[in-house]
C-alpha cells in the first residue's frame, strides 16, 4: 500500500482552495490505491470474519422472514391497536439512511460541490443497500405475503386497480422509482471505473465480468461526452427524489388521522430526518473504511468535516421540527393531538422519546466543536448515536401514536418479540453483507471523478466542465 502523507485540509483559509485530495496522489496512484483493494487475490482475514458475521445475520433475517411467512404476522409484536410495529419502523429507518447517498451524488453534483467525488460512490452504494433492506419490510409485514403484488397497478383478470388514494400505493411507486434511479445512477457512474478494473484484470473471469459490466467503455471523447450528459441528466432526475421519496413515506402517516401522525409538517421533517440519518450512516461507514482500506488521502478529514456539518445542520432542522410539532399540538387546540404529544413526552414511551431527543438534538450539538468534527472516534460515536436516535424517532412516531389514539378503551402497549429483534438485527446483516461485497469487488471510490479534482499539477489537463 502506498503511504501517502496525511495533511490537514480542514483549515478554512480564504486565500486558497483546500485540496480535495491529500498527499502526492497522482493519476496512477489513485488508480492503484482504489483498484488494488478489489484486486487482492484474497482479502484480509478480518474481512472474512466480518463477512461471516454479516452473512450469518442475513441468514437470521431470512429465517425470521421464513418463519413469519409460514406462521403469520402474529409472530411479531404487532397487536391491536399497534397494527404497525418494528417492520415499518425499520422500513422508514432504512429508507431514510438511503437519502444521504442520493443527496451527495445528485444534489451536491448539481451544486458543483466537487468534494463529493471521493465519497459519492460509497454513499450511493449505501443508498442502494439501504433501499434493499428497506424493501424487505413492507413486503413481508403484510398478512398475505403471497398476494403482495396486488399493490402494483397491473392489468389483471380481476379487472381491479389498486386504490390510488392510498398512500401505501404512492409508497410502492416512490420506493420502486427511487430504487431504480439509485441503482442506475450508481451503475452509470461506475462504468469508467469498471473499465479500469477490466483493463487491469489479470484473470479471465475478471476480464469477462468487469468487461461485461463496463459495457464496452473505451474512454473515447464521445463516450465521455455522452457519459457526462447522462450522468447530469440522471442527477437531475434523482434530485427531486431526495425530496419526494421521504415525503411520500411521511404521507403514510400524515394522511392517516391518527393523532401524532396527522400533521402537515411531516414531509419536510421526514426529509430532514432522512438526510440527517443518512449522513450519520455515511460517517459511520466511512470512518472505519477509510482507515481500514488506506483511503485517508482520498476520503480526507475535510470530507468528514463537511459531513459532520451536514449532520449538525440537519440535526437543527430535526430539532426544530420536534419543537414545532409540540407547539402546534398545543396551539392547535386539538385535545387528541395535544394528548398524543403529552403522552410521547411523559407517557409510557417517554424513555423512547427522550432517547430520541438526546441522540438527535442534543448529542449532535457537539459538532459545533471543531475537534469533534475532526476526531474520527468522536464523530463515529456521535454518528452511531444519531442512527440510534433516528430509529427511535420512527419507533416513537409509529408505536406511541398508535398505542393511544382516540378511544381510551382501545389503548395498548407494544412488546417486540424475538422475531422482531432478529429481523432488525438481520437487516443490518444484509446491509453489511452487501456492503462488504461491494468493498471487495467494486471500486469504492469514483476514480475517474477523483482524478478530475486532483491538484492541477498532478491531474489531467484542465477539465472542460459540462454545462
Amino acid at each position, binding site marked *: 500500500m502506498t503511504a501517502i502523507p496525511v495533511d490537514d485540509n480542514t483549515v478554512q483559509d480564504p486565500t486558497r482552495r483546500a485540496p480535495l485530495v491529500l498527499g502526492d496522489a497522482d493519476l496512477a496512484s489513485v488508480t492503484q490505491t482504489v483498484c488494488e483493494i478489489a484486486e487482492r487475490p484474497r482479502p484480509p482475514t478480518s474481512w472474512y470474519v466480518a463477512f461471516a458475521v454479516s452473512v450469518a445475520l442475513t441468514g437470521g433475517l431470512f429465517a425470521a422472514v421464513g418463519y413469519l411467512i409460514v*406462521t*403469520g*404476522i*402474529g409472530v411479531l*409484536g*404487532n*397487536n*391491536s*391497536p*399497534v*397494527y*404497525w410495529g418494528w417492520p415499518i419502523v425499520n422500513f422508514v429507518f432504512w429508507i431514510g439512511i438511503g437519502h444521504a447517498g442520493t443527496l451527495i451524488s445528485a444534489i451536491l453534483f448539481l451544486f458543483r460541490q466537487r468534494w463529493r467525488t471521493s465519497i459519492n460512490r460509497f454513499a450511493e452504494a449505501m443508498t442502494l443497500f439501504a433501499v434493499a433492506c428497506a424493501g424487505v419490510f413492507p413486503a413481508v409485514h*403484510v*398478512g*398475505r*405475503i403471497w*398476494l*403482495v403484488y*396486488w*399493490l402494483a397497478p397491473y392489468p389483471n383478470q380481476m379487472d*381491479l*386497480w*389498486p*386504490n390510488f*388514494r*392510498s*398512500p*401505501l*400505493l404512492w409508497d*410502492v411507486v416512490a420506493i420502486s422509482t427511487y430504487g431504480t434511479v439509485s441503482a442506475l445512477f450508481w451503475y452509470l457512474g461506475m462504468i469508467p471505473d469498471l473499465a479500469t478494473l477490466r483493463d487491469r484484470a489479470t484473470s479471465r473471469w475478471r476480464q469477462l465480468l468487469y468487461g461485461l459490466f463496463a459495457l464496452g467503455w473505451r474512454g473515447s471523447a464521445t463516450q465521455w461526452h455522452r457519459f457526462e450528459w447522462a450522468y447530469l441528466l440522471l442527477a437531475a432526475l434523482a434530485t427531486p427524489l431526495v425530496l419526494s421519496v421521504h415525503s411520500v413515506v411521511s404521507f*403514510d402517516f400524515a*394522511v*392517516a*388521522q*391518527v393523532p401524532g401522525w396527522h400533521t402537515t409538517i411531516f414531509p419536510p421533517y421526514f426529509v430532514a430526518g432522512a438526510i440527517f440519518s443518512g449522513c450519520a450512516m455515511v460517517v459511520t461507514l466511512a470512518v472505519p473504511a477509510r482507515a481500514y482500506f488506506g483511503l485517508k488521502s482520498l476520503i480526507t478529514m475535510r470530507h468528514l468535516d463537511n459531513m459532520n456539518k451536514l449532520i449538525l445542520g440537519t440535526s437543527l432542522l430535526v430539532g426544530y421540527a420536534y419543537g414545532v410539532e409540540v407547539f402546534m399540538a398545543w396551539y392547535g387546540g386539538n*385535545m*387528541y393531538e395535544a*394528548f398524543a404529544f*403529552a*403522552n410521547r413526552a*411523559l*407517557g*409510557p414511551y417517554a424513555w423512547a422519546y427522550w432517547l430520541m431527543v438526546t441522540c438527535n438534538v442534543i448529542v449532535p450539538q457537539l459538532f459545533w466543536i471543531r475537534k469533534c468534527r475532526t476526531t474520527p472516534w468522536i464523530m463515529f460515536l456521535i454518528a452511531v448515536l444519531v442512527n440510534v436516535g433516528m430509529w427511535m424517532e420512527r419507533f416513537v412516531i409509529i408505536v406511541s401514536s*398508535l398505542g*393511544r*389514539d*382516540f*378511544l*381510551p*378503551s*382501545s*389503548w*395498548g402497549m407494544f*412488546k417486540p418479540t424475538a422475531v422482531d429483534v432478529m429481523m432488525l438485527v438481520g437487516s443490518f446483516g444484509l446491509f453489511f453483507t452487501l456492503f462488504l461485497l461491494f468493498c471487495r469487488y467494486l471500486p469504492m471510490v469514483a476514480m475517474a471523478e477523483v482524478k478530475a479534482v486532483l491538484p492541477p499539477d498532478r491531474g489531467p489537463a484542465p477539465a472542460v466542465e459540462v454545462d
Partner: protein
Amino acid sequence: MSSVDEQRSTESWWRSLEQLADTPRFRALLDAEFPAEADPGGISRRRWLQLMGASLALAGATGCRWQEQEIRPFAKRPDGRVPGKPRRFTTAMPLGDAAIGLEVTTVDGRPVKIEGNPRHPQSLGATDLLAQAALLELYDPDRSRNVCLRSGKEKGPRSWDEFLAAFRQQADRLHKAEGAGFCVLTEAHSSPTLDALHAEFLRSFPKARWFEFDPIGDDHQRAGAVLAFGRPLRTHLALDASQVVLCLDADPLGAHPAALRYARDFAAHRNATAGQMNRLYAVESSLSLTGAAADHRLALRSTEIPAFLAILESVVAGSGDLGEAPSEPVRRFVDAVAKDLLDNRGRGAVCIGPGQAAEAHAAVHRLNALLENVGEDRPVGYTRVPHPNRPSHTEAIKALADEIRAGRVGTLLILGGNPVYNAPADLAFGEALQAVETSVHLSLYRDETSRQCTWHLPRSHFLESWGDVCSYDGTYSVVQPMIAPLFGGRSPIEVLAVVLDAAREAKQPAAGPEELVRRTFCQEIAHDEGAAWRQTLRDGLLAESRWPWETVSAPGGPKLEATPAEGESKDGGLELVFCRDASVYDGRFANNGWLQELPDPLTRLVWDNAALLSPATAAELGIENETLMTIEVGDRQIRMPAWVMPGQARGSIAVSLGYGRTAAGHIGGDTADNVAAVGVDVYPLRGTSAMTVVTGVKVEPTGEPYRLGNTQDHHAIDTVGRRGRQQRLGSLIRQATLEHYRQHPDFAKHAVHHPDLKSLWREHAFAGHRWAMAIDLSRCIGCGACVVACQAENNIPIVGKQQVLRGRAMHWLRVDRYFRGREDAPEVAFQPLPCQQCELAPCEQVCPVAATVHSREGLNDMVYNRCVGTRYCANNCPYKVRRFNYLDFHKDLEDPDNEVAKMKYNPEVTVRSRGVMEKCTYCVQRIQAAKIEAKNAGRAIRDGEIRTACQQVCPTGAIVFGDLAEDEDGRESDVLKLHGSDRAYALLGELNIRPRTIYLARIRNPNPQLEATDPEHDGHPG
C-alpha cells in the same frame, strides 16, 4: 397329449405340470393370482406405457387426496325442507331450576344460531350470553363420546348396552331390597317429567333416597320465605311497575334467573325521552351489573348489609331505633332511600341477593309489605317454588355425604352436576365417593366427578334431547331436540326411564323420552289429551302457564340486629364473597371458549378469575394489582391473583366460582392431558357453613406477579393516560341527569364544539336503503350478550389468553366500560362499539388494494379475499373496531377430532383465513337474506324486519337497526326517529367521518337529596 398341447409345450416354457395341462382349475388359480393374465390379449406396449404413466401421475397425487365424502340426495325430500334454507324451532334452555325460551335456527338439520323466543315471557326475544354460547357447547369436540367404566382393572370405553346389562343386575338386586342403599343426586331442575319419574322412582324403590344439589342455588331465598311466610316462596319483581328499586347485594339485571325479563322491564321504565324514569339504588359489596346501572350505589361489605337493612327497616317503620349510629354516608343513603321508598309507596321494590342470610330475606319481605309493594299490579309478588318440600341444596349434599360415610350407599346415580368439583369442601365429596360400590355419573363431559365414578355416561345436550322445563315464573316449555345426539348421549329423563324399566324388568323401554314428556304434559300440565301439544311445541311455551301470584300473609321473622355481629364489625376480619361467574356460571361452562374469552362485564378479565379488592383494601394489605395472594379460610388455603377493582367494598374480597377446572377439556383445563386449568378453583374455601359469604379470612401478599388476561386495562395506568382519559370521557360518553336533560334537551349536541366540517372529496350519494344503527346508552347495562351473539353469528374465532394479552382478541363488537368519579364509589358507563359504518370511512381511503369499500346502502364492506393485510385500515380507524387475523385462528379445525366443531359455523358467513382484516358488517348476511325474501314476495322490507345479531339478543333493546330512508309511505323507521332524537350524538363526529351508528346520551335519575352534597357526582360533562 393332443397335438395342440404338443405345440404349446414346444413353443413356450412351462412352469408346472398344471400349466402344461392348462386345466380349468389352474386357469382359475392363475386368474386370481395374476389378474392381468386373465386378459387373454395381454397388454400392449402402448397400453403399458399409458398405465405406467397414469400410475406414476397418480402416485404423485396420493398426498393431495381429499377425504372421501359421500353426498346423497334426498330420494324423497322431507316435508317443508329446502336444502340450505334456515328453519327455526323453539326450545328452552334449562339452567338451574329456571329456563329461558329459545328459538333456534337450523340449517340442513344442524343448529347454527340461538335466539330468544319472543313469545316467552322470560326471554321476549332476548337471550343471555350463556344461551348464546350453548351452541359452542353442543359442538364441543371435548364432549364425552362414550360410556366409560372405571372399576378395578376393568377400565375403558363401553357401550350403552354393556352398561345396561351391568346395571340391570344391580337394579334387580336393588328392586328386591326396595331400593335400600340406592341414591340419586340431581342438579337443580324444574322439569315436570323428571319430577314424575322421580315420583315413580320412589314408588319402585321406596327405600331409595333422592337428593338435589346445585352450587348456585336459592337456599337463602327459600329459608327466608319460610321464616317470613312459613313456606318456601319465590319472589318476583315487576320492574316495569316500580318507580324506586333498592337492591341489596342483589343483581336482578345480571346474575338472576329472570335477569333477561327484569332488564327489559327496567329499561322500559327508564325512558328519558318520555320523561318517565325509575330510580335504582344498589347496596352491594362487589360491583354488579345492577350496581353499574344504579343511580346511586353504596359499596358496603356483604356482612354489613343486614345492619343496613335493619336501620332501613327502622327508618321506614319510623321506630327511630337505629342501634349503633351508622356512619355518615350510610346514614345519608338510608335516609334518602327510605324517603324515596316511602314517597313511592306501592311503586317501589326492595330486593335482596342470594348471598344474604335467610333473616335478611325475611326482613326484606317485611319491608316490602310495610311499603305496600306486594300484590297484583304491584312491583313485588310471590309464587310457589319447584320442589317445595326438598331440603336446601347444602343440607342435601351434606346428607348424601353423611349417608355415604355411614356406608349406607351402595349405588349412587348422579344425573348431571359435578359434585366432586363443586360440593362444599368440608364434605370432601370426591373422597367419600370412593366408598360407593357403584357410582354412575351422567355428564356432558368426562369431568372431575366422572373420573371418580365407576360408570360415566355421556349426556345429551339440551339441544339434542327431549325434556321440559318451567322458567322462573313457571311458564312451561318443552325442550325439543334440534339434532340427533352427536355423541350418542342420553338425557337424565332417558337414563331414569332406563333405571325404571330395569326395575320393571321390562325388555322393551316403556316409552321414549318424547312420549314421556308428552305424557307428563297431557296428564299434569295441560290436563288434556294432547290438543295443546303441537301448539306448545310451535310456540315454545304453554300459554298462560305461569304460576299465579300467591296471596301471602303478613310476613314475620326475627328482627335484624342494627349492629353487625361480633367479629363482623368494620375493623374486624376480611370477608370473602363467592360470586356466580358471569361467563362460566358455576364452572359448568368452563370449556366454552366463547365464554372464557368474553370479558367479564365489569373487570374485563378473560380466561381468569381473580380476587377483587378495593384500592383501599389492597393498599392496607400491601397487595399489588396482578400479584398472587394467599387466601386462608380455616385450615384451607388457596393462592390466587389479585385484581384491584374500583367500587369493591372496603374489607370485602370477591371471588368468582367456576375456575380452576382440572377435567373440563382442552379449553377449560385438563390435567390428564396437560392442559393447564383456567383460573383458580375457589371451591376449596367454600364450606357448608358459609356457602356465600365467609368471614374471618386471612390474606397474605406473596408479591409474585401474575399476568391476568384483560381486554381493557383501565386501572394500572400512568398519570398522563389517566388525565387524557378523563379529559375525553365527557365527549365519548355523554350523559346528564334527568333534571339537566329536561332543562337542556340538546346537551349532547354541545359536548363537543368544532368548526364546520368540509369534505375533501365528492361524497357518496346514497339512494335507496341507508342502513344505520342507534345505541341507547341509557338502556345498555353492559351484560355482553351482544358480544357472544356477534361471535356466534359471524364465525368469530377465539384466540386464547396469550393472544388476548398481546391485544389480538377478535370480537367485532366490544363493550367498553369506563369509570368516572372516585375510586371507591365510581360511576360506571358502558358503550357497545361495533363498526360505526362511517359514510366517509377513513379505513377505505387508505387501503391500497381497495379491499374495504363502501356499499351503495352505506355499509363499509370488507372484501376478505381481496385483503392482503397491510393493516393500514385498522391504524386509521379511530374506533379501533377492525380485527386482524394475526395467526391462523382456525388451525385447531385441522385436527380430525375437531371435525364436529365446524358444524357451529354460520353457513352464510365466510370463515376468515390468517392475514386478513375483518370487522362488523351490520350482519350483512341478514340484510341480504331479508332483501331476497322481500324481493321474492314483491314487497318492501318492513322496518324491524332485519335485526342484527347484537340487536336481537339485547335484553334491554338498547340497539336499534334499520333504514334511514323513509319507506314508500313516508313513514319513519325507528332508527331514523332515534337519529333525530335530541339525545343522539355521533361518537368522534368531529373527525367528519359521519358514522352511521349514533349513540343516545345516557340519562341518569339521581336523587337530588344525595346528589347535591356529592360534588364528585356531577351528572353531566362540562
